[in-house]
């Protein structure tokens, strides 16, 4: 016999104990942050309201929580008008303008083709561009990144490779087998590539292997960052590499390989780092991971406050 009203709260309390925020995305206007968790919810936070001088406790909570998918939402991406969310085998698009209101429904749902019904692929990485079917990875693709100057896309996956694809032809241009390189491979952790970021000619990738900075033209690792734990997400920012992974810390790394800072964060492990280039303050970084709290940094040196999923 279950009492109806407290059970919702009971379940929610336990869910929040185990929630992971898997992806974040900034709104086009720069005022909102969308965060998606592994229970299929997308929460919209009023970031500029929370950053303002008179911010109160309510501002740190979600403005709206949308039940986006039945399964976990693995990735988010934003365009000028739309927010795309990727889950088990489907991509849904939401209008940024309507996300704040109640009863928001997705604009469209696309199902990318899958070979068999049992293996419904999860959409791990979303970047906005045209679609081609890019075949090549042996195992699941963890992360996708677009190169800026060249019309290429990089992908990193479970099989331990980073492949570059040409967007116009759909052909694989380059293949880097990260785990084969002695400097960075860590066989006891595995060979999977989870995080990938690229800037002009440089690429940083990591996961099972150590986080390494690669020079793409030559395809060689230049710097291996000495971080013991696998990293889940990395970003290039100004002249730093920001990365987060297992362990409650955000790492600020210099391109030379020195660890400039290790900032403590609330989640026990970080999964998603999001920079907000268009927000009124210049340097706003939000990080999220294995916790219902999302940390907001206005200065990369310390955590300013946390937004919380409810």
């Amino acid at each position: 016999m279950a009492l109806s009203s407290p059970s919702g709260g009971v379940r929610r309390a336990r869910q929040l104990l185990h929630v992971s925020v898997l992806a974040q995305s900034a709104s086009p206007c720069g005022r909102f942050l969308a965060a998606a968790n592994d229970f299929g919810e997308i929460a919209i936070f009023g970031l500029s309201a929370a950053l303002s001088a008179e911010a109160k406790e309510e501002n740190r909570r979600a403005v709206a929580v949308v039940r986006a998918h039945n399964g976990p939402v693995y990735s988010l991406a934003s365009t000028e008008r739309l927010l795309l969310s990727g889950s088990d085998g489907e991509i849904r698009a939401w209008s940024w303008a309507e996300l704040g209101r109640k009863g928001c429904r997705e604009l469209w749902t696309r199902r990318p083709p899958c070979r068999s019904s049992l293996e419904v692929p999860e959409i791990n990485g979303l970047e906005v561009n045209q679609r081609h079917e890019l075949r090549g990875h042996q195992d699941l693709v963890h992360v996708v990144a677009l190169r800026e100057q060249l019309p290429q896309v990089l992908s990193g996956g479970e099989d331990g490779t980073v492949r570059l694809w040409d967007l116009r032809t759909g052909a694989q241009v380059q293949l880097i087998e990260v785990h084969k390189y002695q400097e960075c491979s860590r066989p006891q952790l595995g060979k999977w590539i989870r995080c990938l970021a690229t800037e002009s000619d440089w690429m940083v990738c990591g996961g099972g292997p150590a986080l390494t900075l690669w020079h793409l033209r030559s395809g060689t690792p230049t710097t291996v960052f000495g971080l013991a734990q696998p990293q889940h997400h990395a970003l290039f920012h100004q002249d730093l590499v920001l990365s987060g992974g297992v362990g409650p810390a955000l790492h600020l790394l210099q391109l030379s390989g020195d660890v400039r800072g290790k900032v403590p964060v609330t989640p026990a492990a970080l999964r998603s780092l999001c920079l907000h280039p268009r927000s009124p303050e210049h340097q706003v970084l939000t990080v999220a991971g294995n916790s219902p709290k999302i940390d907001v940094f206005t200065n990369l040196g310390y955590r300013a406050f946390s937004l919380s999923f409810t």
Partner: protein
Amino acid sequence: MSSESSKKRKPKVIRTDGAPAEGKRGKGDTDQDVRYYSEESEVDLRDPIKDYELYRETCQELQRLMAEIQELKSRGIKENASEIDERRVQSCVHFMTLKKLNRLAHIRLKKGRDQTHEAKQKVDAYHLQLQNLLYEVMHLQKEITKCLEFKSKHEEIELVSLEEFYKEAPPEISRPAITLTEPHQQTLARLDWELEQRKRLAEKYKECLTSKEKILKEIEVKKEYLSSLQPRLNSIMQASLPVQEYLFMPFDQAHKQYETARHLPPPLYVLFVQASAYGQACDKKLVVAIEGSVEEAKALYKPPEDSQDDESDSDAEEEQTTKRRRPTLGVQLDDKRKEMLKRHPLSVTLDLKCKDDNVLHLTFHYLMNLNVMTVKAKVTTAMEMTTAISAGDLLSPDSLLNCLYPGDHGRKTPNPANQFQFDKVGILTLSDYVTELGHPYVWVQKLGGLHFPKDQPQHTVAADNSLSASHMELTVKLLRSRLQSRLALHKQFASLEHGVVPVSSECQQLFPTKIVSRLVKWTAIPYEDYAELPYTKDVIEAGLAEDTHLYYMALIERGTAKLQAAVVLNPGYSTLPPVFSLCLNWKGERNSSNDDNIRAMESEVNVYYKELWGPKPGYQLLTNQLQRLCMVLDVYLETEPHDPSVEGPKEFPQEKMCLRLVRGPLRLKPFKFNYPQGFFSHR
């Protein structure tokens, strides 16, 4: 009869005349009437003035004679003897004249007197007549005035007004023709009418009196009948007792209970009434009874004078005792505390029977000065239960009813006004006395109809029936489910301590047939130990682990891998699922903060518990959760990728069927078991 003596005796002459006249009269009494003085007839003829003149003359003559006599006598008596005799004879004649004159005078006088007397008499008679007449006149005047003032009694009678009279009176009485003209007749007619009306009314009055008498008699008869009925009814009741027992309808018993219930204090009374009503209407397995001493309860409500006397006596005694006992203030304070915490001598017991014959006994007490109710619980099981060591606390009376409603610890008194009372006697909290007094849970107060708003003292909180009624059903259901869940847990613990996870047949489909990991140890741990574990901090921060909860440690092993699970058991057990925190010791220590898969395993039991509830009351949640933990540990260990740097085969060959080993950005293992197909997939 000398002349001097006759002169001197003149005034007396009359008398002496009268006397001898009388003397003579005495002799000749009969002659009196015949004796008639001739002077009487002469009186009228002679003139009194002449008689007076004659008298004067005579007197002068006499004087002269006397003088001559004297002279003569002086000359010598012998010479003038003849002249003296002559003069003497003359003087005698004069004396005779005088006598006659005297008589005449007397008779004149007498006549005069008689005439006066007569006249006087007449006057008197007239006077008398006048008086009489005057008197009569006065009398008559009085009579007249009386008559004029006479108020006939008829004027005192309030007569009906004229209009009404002419309206109502029948014409033979009212005779309007005559009476309108003559007021006397009118009044007479009115009086007639009045008389007639009064006669009618008098008759009616008599009739009413007789009917009243009749009715009184009837009442008497009926009263006697009724009074004779009461003892007969009693005898019938007595006679029906065996029948009641035979038919299991203990009306008499119930009646006696209601009698004692009248002495209950209001909250206990409300509880008693509501519980009996609920028991009769909805729940045959709920039995309500009253225990305690009724005399003591009656003694609490003695009349004021007695209690005042007692108070003054006890005051005097107290003064004495305080003087003697001054050093021991503590004892006094203790007494005051005992007084404050005094319980009402009567208590209400509720026995909740469950389907499997286990009984939960609840005894409700009322603390009079604090106006709160407390409850003590006891469980009697149908059969002897082997007590598992870890299950010691499950059925302990202290914690059995903890948190029946969320947050209801029963350690603090729910009545905010009690704080002030406690301050006076130095009691810190009620929790020190809970073991002997019972727990003052909030639902107990609500069952007794006492509603204390949070943190706001109120003057009086009176017992309210509707509050009790609305909570009764829910509370009884919660109590039953609490008892049953505890008993179920008791049984489960007994089995868990032996290393066997009891999974019922309905739940077999949640798990694969072969699970290699085994439960090795199951112990109860205190809250402090739980709090010290490094991997339980999240749970405590999330507010899911408090000191009212029960804590256990389970150890699951497979090969070299040891999984420690710290379990928080909420008192509201199966509706509020237990929370597990895991720590795996295998090639290093892994827990939820450094291994996503361990976190996923935790969420498998903590978040996805709905499928694990099992059949309806859901008491198998804990054992199903433990079984699931064993299952996911198997999957974890078997799907661990082979580490090429380590030599030798994998410690745990993969036996479970899994579609994909890694999924999602978290790279989770497949922990979800799909029933008929028997493979593992991701959620």
